[in-house]
């Protein structure tokens, strides 16, 4: 009993100490944890990102044309079962299928499921090869070409012994939608992150300078920023994308698209950074540093930046969904990422056919992932903002 009380008392004291000596990050983290919605969103986001990162391991088939299942185009999803009228099985299984098509079926593949033909799932199967480090840069001059492949594996989480297993069904050419979704999440993520990063760097430089030095430089930079914000983005992007040379590989297109996203997004961020810098610049501690003889660079790096780092991180999180949304819209029109570097936008491009909605509803499954992903990011962003706001302490 006494032991118990002692422990409590000690924890109480420890808690108080912990609270007052905690760093900014720890404070934010603990407040974030108490926000249930944000936590749920955070977990969902983490799971999605992990799924995307390990997409190759989790996908039984290659998400490109090479991995298509010629015998199962526009096929409905196959959900593994444990039990049917023939009995229970510890190992999950799916059914074999046969299909036929003719003028009588209006040229649609009519898939008949053979309930007698059980195909058992196997785990940790051997399949197509993938590498975690795969660089192939074609630089001028053959000497400089980089072609590195490392961390190559060929194990996949699951597969079937005969035929194919398509959890989310297949598309018109037979590409597995499940595999494509996983890859697409990761691609959209990478593209969005890269875009945000580029925007951030630009915004930091321009917004920071603008806010710190003020005066006519500020006005001039503001005018430039506003000018760029004024331009209607989508049409200009379309014109730019139409101009991309055809020889460029999918990866090069990816970088260009991310760069363009960054260029479109930086004005908003720059404005926010400028606002932060302006309001902090007149604070006493900056004045103190200046009186101590600190250089501008030092002041910016050691004093100004840390003061609004949390705000910046949150701003970045908030900007991220807009980047992804923009990239999706453009891929949808057909001007964004292309096979094999496909994103959620290009997956959704196939959805825009009347035929699909009426007959192949499973094409929409990536949409659900996309919506979940964005919502997760937004709620996490909101949660972070609430957690970082010092004024919020008084609420809880």
């Amino acid at each position, binding site marked *: 009993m006494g032991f118990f009380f002692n422990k409590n008392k000690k924890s109480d004291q420890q808690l108080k100490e912990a609270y007052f000596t905690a760093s900014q990050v720890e404070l934010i983290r603990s407040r974030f944890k108490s926000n249930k919605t944000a936590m749920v969103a955070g977990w969902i986001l983490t799971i999605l990102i992990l799924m995307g990162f390990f997409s190759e391991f989790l996908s039984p088939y290659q998400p490109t044309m090479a991995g298509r299942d010629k015998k199962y185009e526009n096929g409905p999803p196959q959900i593994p079962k444990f039990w049917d009228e023939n009995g229970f099985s510890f190992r999950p299984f799916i059914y074999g299928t046969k299909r036929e098509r003719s*003028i009588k079926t209006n*040229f649609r593949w009519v898939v008949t499921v053979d309930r007698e033909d059980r195909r058992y799932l196997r785990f940790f199967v051997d399949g197509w090869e993938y590498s975690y480090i795969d660089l192939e840069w074609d630089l001028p001059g053959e000497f400089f070409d980089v072609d590195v492949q490392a961390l190559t594996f060929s194990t996949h989480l699951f597969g079937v012994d005969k035929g194919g297993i398509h959890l989310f069904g297949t598309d018109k050419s037979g590409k597995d939608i499940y595999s494509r979704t996983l890859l697409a999440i990761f691609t959209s993520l990478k593209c969005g992150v890269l875009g945000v990063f580029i925007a951030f760097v630009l915004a930091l430089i321009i917004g920071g300078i603008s806010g710190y030095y003020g005066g006519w430089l500020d006005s001039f930079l503001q005018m430039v920023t506003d000018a760029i914000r004024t331009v209607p983005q989508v049409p200009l992007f379309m014109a730019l994308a139409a101009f991309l040379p055809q020889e460029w590989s999918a990866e090069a297109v990816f970088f260009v698209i991310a760069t363009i996203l960054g260029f479109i997004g930086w004005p908003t961020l720059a404005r926010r950074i400028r606002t932060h810098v302006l309001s902090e610049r007149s604070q006493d501690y900056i004045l103190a540093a200046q009186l101590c003889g600190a250089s501008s660079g030092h002041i910016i790096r050691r004093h100004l930046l840390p003061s609004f780092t949390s705000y910046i991180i949150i701003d970045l999180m908030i900007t991220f969904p807009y980047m992804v949304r923009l990239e999706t819209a453009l891929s949808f029109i057909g001007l964004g990422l*292309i096979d094999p570097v496909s994103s959620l936008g290009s997956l959704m491009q196939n959805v825009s056919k009347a035929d699909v909605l009426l007959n192949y509803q499973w094409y929409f499954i990536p949409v659900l992932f996309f919506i979940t992903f964005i919502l997760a990011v937004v709620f996490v962003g909101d949660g972070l903002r609430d957690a970082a706001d010092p004024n919020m302490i008084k609420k809880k």
Partner: protein
Amino acid sequence: MFWYKLAGAGLLSLGLLFSTGTTALASCPAATVADMKGVKAGKYPQQFELSEFERNAGCKMTFQGNPDIAKLNAKIRGNTRNLPPVEQRLPSEPLIYAPYDSIGKYGGTLDVLSNATEAGTSDFLSVRHVNLVRYLDDLTTIVPNVAKDWKWNSDFTQLTFYLRKGHKWSDGHPFTAEDVKFWYDHLALDPKIMEKPKDYVMVGGKRMTVEVIDPQTVRFNLPAPKPGLLAHFAFSFAQGFQPKHFLGKYHPDLNPDADKLAKQAGFENGLAVIKAYYGNSDWTDTPSPLLNAPDKVAKLPADVIPTLESHIYITDTTEGRHLVANPYFHIVDTQGNQLPYINEQDEVYKNDNEIRILTLVNGEADYKAQSLQLSSAPMLLENQEKGDYTIYLKPEITLSNMSFNVTHPDTDKRKVFADLRFRQAMSMAINRDEINDVALFGQGTPKQYTGFSPLPDFVDKKWESYMIDYNPGKAKSLLDQIGMKDNDGDGFRELPSGKKLVLNMNFSTQGIDPQIVEMVGQNWAEVGIQTTVKEVTPDEYRSAQSSNQLDVGMWRSSQPLSIVMGNNELWVPPFENYFGHRTGMLWAEYVDSNGSKGVKPPAYVMQLIDDVNAFQSSPIGSAEFKRLGQRMVKNMTENLLKIGIAQKPAPIYRKNSLKNFVEFKTHSYEYYRTYPYRATQWYLDE
């Protein structure tokens, strides 16, 4: 007593009235193609001249018009309100159609879809189109339309057309041979209007002369024989006449006051008015003054140019057009009812394919064929009952094909592409049956490209199946023979010189189906040729083609015999026009510059050029004609300049309430879409 007599007289006169209306001379039978009711066929199938019909049917024709015609005429600005009775509106020698199924009912509005004002419209334009002559629905026989008859001289250097007496334009003014001469001399050949004359009005680059013998007889004098000239007037969109009484007064060469007249209406000069009406193009879908000069059109004498077609525009906006029946149309049916049966036509623009398909599935249009692809067939077929329409799948005329750049700037690639064995290997490496199954629902026909489509019957059928069998083993051995081996073990062959070979297959969906390209790319990869497939815009594709940058050309090509007789573009480098599938660009440069630039083509190409020119001048069906044709096909096909893949069908959509509709033989533009199938006798039966 007296009023009994009166009643009697009344009854008697009534009786007489009825009897004279129905008997007297037997009124004409309702002969249709389905049931001719014993009337003997005339000189040309499915149609008659008035005297011919009255003779064969033993009747006297009386004419009836559309009861609503006065109301429709009132909507045409520029027409007089007082519409003369139908007998005076028709020519005294009208054309008589035997409708396909039944005599039609007047009324209704034909609803159609196009992409935009001048895009995807040829389908609908052909519905109301008329020209001097027309192809019959067997796509081989030529029959009269605006012209009553024609005559060639013995060596095909003089073509005379006989027009119809009393034929009038849609505004009531007479149509005569002068209108044909006006079109040729003052529009088609006038550099102020057409900067360069179109090649269909020339013969071997030289102009013809048009003579007006009398108001109903016009003669074309050709500088050299061109038997294809008659066929041109049968399949071309270009009508061989324009209203001289209307446009002539704005033409500075014909009317010294032309500019003054134009200025009164607010235009700069007479030529500007002509441009507003005629669009300086023989296409009949160019924007009318309603659309291109909405602020000035009220001061012009009419909203749109008078026409001989079955319907005329009354509104013209960026959303669509509306038309009403032409009160002076020259065709009647076998019972004397003036065509067209359909009162009005409504054209709506929808530029997105998915939206068009949705509209069709909902049954919101009455007819559509252009731009419908096989890939939409499942959706269209499934909803036939719900939308109350029928789908017909008919073969297209053009054939998907691919070519290798035989004049590639990279000499290593050029050497390989120019090697016939390489092209043979690539042709044999394509699994056409699989492509047919997967991409074309098994409905296509694997075929080799021969240049003609359909293949004329005097050419050996074997050429259509030349080297289309799937034989990857033979392909690989041929590639080995050329010296293309896989030295670095990556699974793909290198050029004989040792350099890596990657075939860039850049295509446009306007020209070829993406699935076909992907599958051919896979097939070629399987025999060791590395390929990358990329979709580009049509502009980019054409641009790359023009600058000789392509490795592989991909598009649809082929023309029917009738077109080849007037147009040699498929047989002369670069083997199609600017907007088609061109190959051998440097050979074309050589030929155009008479040898000073470019690369000299091999002997078989020079023979193709000579042969096609001789072919066009030889009399149709002669032994020389057939010999030349055979040799042309042999040269073209053996050398696999263009490798054919498959010919596919495409859907034709027709609402079930549209009657007198006959199944088309092909789904194609080449015979001007619906023109051979007499859309002017369609009617709606709700």
